[in-house]
């Protein structure tokens, strides 16, 4: 897994996205903290004109810089594409033929990719976090650091990034090509909550059942939830760390069993076809039901139920036909 050639090959095929990730990390941490400090100084100045009021810095403003917000979300998108370029793109082109013909085991090939990715994310985050931390620490707002702890602003975000990377790599071991890998990573990152809403829509209409909150366990198994959650206790890092370990072990097992003759297709493992066919069809049918029933007046219950099943049936037919075609597609680039 530490073969120089494999690392070089991985760098060569991902250097553009690595550059983009670096820029995103710079924007997310050092750049954003400088903007925030500038904004806070402006506010201090503004408040100084009013003797009765005083500028107050809240902890959520520190979280918005280090832990949550648009930049961590953009970084996660970058990380998913990064994983796509490490595995998925090799399947679209003939690069995997080259890689698998080399005198390395598949375990070594996968671990070189995984470690390379983990190291890039870890180092970029560490450097940019340190710079951002020092900038804030040296500013007049350094007291803001006392509002938060390291788990909240450093460990939780980095483990969430590594979790997304490991998950995207895991999806890469079952997806047949890059677009599928990226799309499935996004879909499965919100899947539990998505399914909850689809079932909720069904139950709400037919049984009049309402859930005010998403159950906690549904949130815990939905990756995108971690992007909007502040983790204060180190014990709560258990879920992302377990996810990283679980997805990496599964990835290793599946990558070794890679049938690369299915490269370019939707899925590598044909045994998953019926599961995906049924899953995609049911989810889209439920979605179709919700969309069409939402067009009916809210007080006309029977009409809403009829509309629901009309939408359900139409979406069922089309999603079944599209899914069948999707599962048969092949997106391998074969030019000479």
């Amino acid at each position: 897994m530490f073969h120089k050639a494999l690392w070089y090959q991985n760098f060569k095929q991902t250097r553009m996205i690595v550059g983009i990730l670096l820029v995103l990390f710079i924007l997310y941490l050092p750049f954003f903290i400088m903007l925030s400090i500038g904004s806070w100084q402006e506010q201090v100045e503004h408040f100084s004109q009013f003797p009765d009021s005083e500028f107050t810095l809240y902890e959520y403003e520190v979280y918005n810089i280090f832990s949550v917000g648009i930049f961590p979300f953009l970084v996660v998108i970058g990380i998913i594409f990064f994983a796509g370029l490490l595995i998925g793109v090799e399947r679209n082109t003939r690069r995997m033929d080259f890689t698998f013909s080399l005198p390395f085991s598949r375990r070594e090939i996968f671990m070189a990719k995984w470690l390379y990715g983990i190291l890039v994310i870890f180092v970029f985050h560490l450097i940019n976090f340190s710079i951002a931390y020092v900038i804030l620490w040296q500013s007049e707002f350094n007291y803001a650091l006392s509002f938060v702890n390291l788990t909240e602003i450093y460990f939780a975000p980095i483990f969430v990034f590594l979790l997304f990377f490991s998950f995207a790599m895991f999806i890469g071991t079952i997806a047949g090509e890059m677009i599928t890998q990226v799309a499935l990573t996004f879909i499965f990152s919100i899947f539990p909550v998505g399914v909850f809403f689809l079932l909720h829509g069904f139950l709400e209409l037919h049984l009049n059942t309402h859930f005010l909150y998403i159950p906690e366990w549904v949130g815990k198994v939905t990756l995108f939830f971690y992007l909007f959650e502040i983790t204060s206790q180190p014990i709560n890092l258990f879920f992302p760390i377990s996810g990283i370990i679980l997805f990496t072990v599964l990835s290793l097992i599946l990558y070794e069993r890679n049938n690369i003759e299915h490269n370019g297709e939707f899925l590598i493992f044909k045994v998953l076809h019926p599961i995906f066919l049924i899953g995609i069809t049911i989810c889209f049918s439920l979605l179709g039901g919700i969309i069409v029933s939402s067009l009916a007046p809210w007080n006309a219950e029977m009409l809403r139920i009829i509309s629901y099943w009309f939408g359900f049936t139409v979406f069922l037919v089309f999603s079944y036909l599209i899914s069948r075609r999707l599962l048969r597609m092949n997106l391998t680039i074969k030019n000479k």
Partner: protein
Amino acid sequence: MKIKHISKRVHQNQILSDIDFEVKTGSIVGIVGRNGAGKTTLLRTMVGILNPTKGDVLIKNESIFSNPKLKENIIFVPDSSEALKNYSTKEMLNLYKGIYSRFDEEYFHELMDRFSLPEVKKIGNLSKGMKALFSLVVAFSTRAKYILLDEPTDGLDVIVKKRILKILVEEVAINDVSVIISSHRLDELEFMANDIVIIKDGKVEKHYELDSMKLNYLKAQVVFKEYMPEDLKNHITVINQTGRVYTIVFEKKRDELRSLIETFQPILYEELPISLEDIFIATLGGEDIVS
């Protein structure tokens, strides 16, 4: 290198069935078959790109699948250099040096000079012929013992083809490597291969040493008073017919066939020199059959 009873199924289709042969050191093995016969799948399995459904590939009696390190002895040159088109020649050199412990940098530069190959920033910018030559230069510089080539001269001009064939023969003679070539160009294989493995429907239809293969078949031109009798047609392969003039191929060992031809009293019976292409047509079906 031993290919032990390899079978491969893809999408419920049996692509390879019980392929079993051995590649001797210092030999050139031609893998011949019609389009879709499974030649490329066989080469990709021999280098461990594809996992066989059954069977194994052994080097020094050890499986390349359980010990991938053995693949230092094998290099696969695909029919396209798509995979590494964004690499510069220098990057390729460094990449291969890092992978193959026996990589011979001096030999690499020597071959680059001999074929007047320029150093470029992107392999993809080289002409098709230069890409093919460069792939071979890299392959030979790895000092791998088995070089697997998939259609190495496909789409190349005559001059490049000649250069490629020359370097292949030289390498086998000087460095005792074995070259396994899948090709449609039977005339080229005839010129250099020792062994021919004919693949039909994923199975080894014939495996011969080329010289003995030619001894096993007979090509003849025959003319009958009328058209060829149906009884005879069932036993021989007609590779060409012009009016009542037939060019036929049949297995030599079947002496009764010659007697059978004589019983129909041909006006002309003349034996002709046989080529690999004739055997290919005779073995894999008449020339009218397209796959």
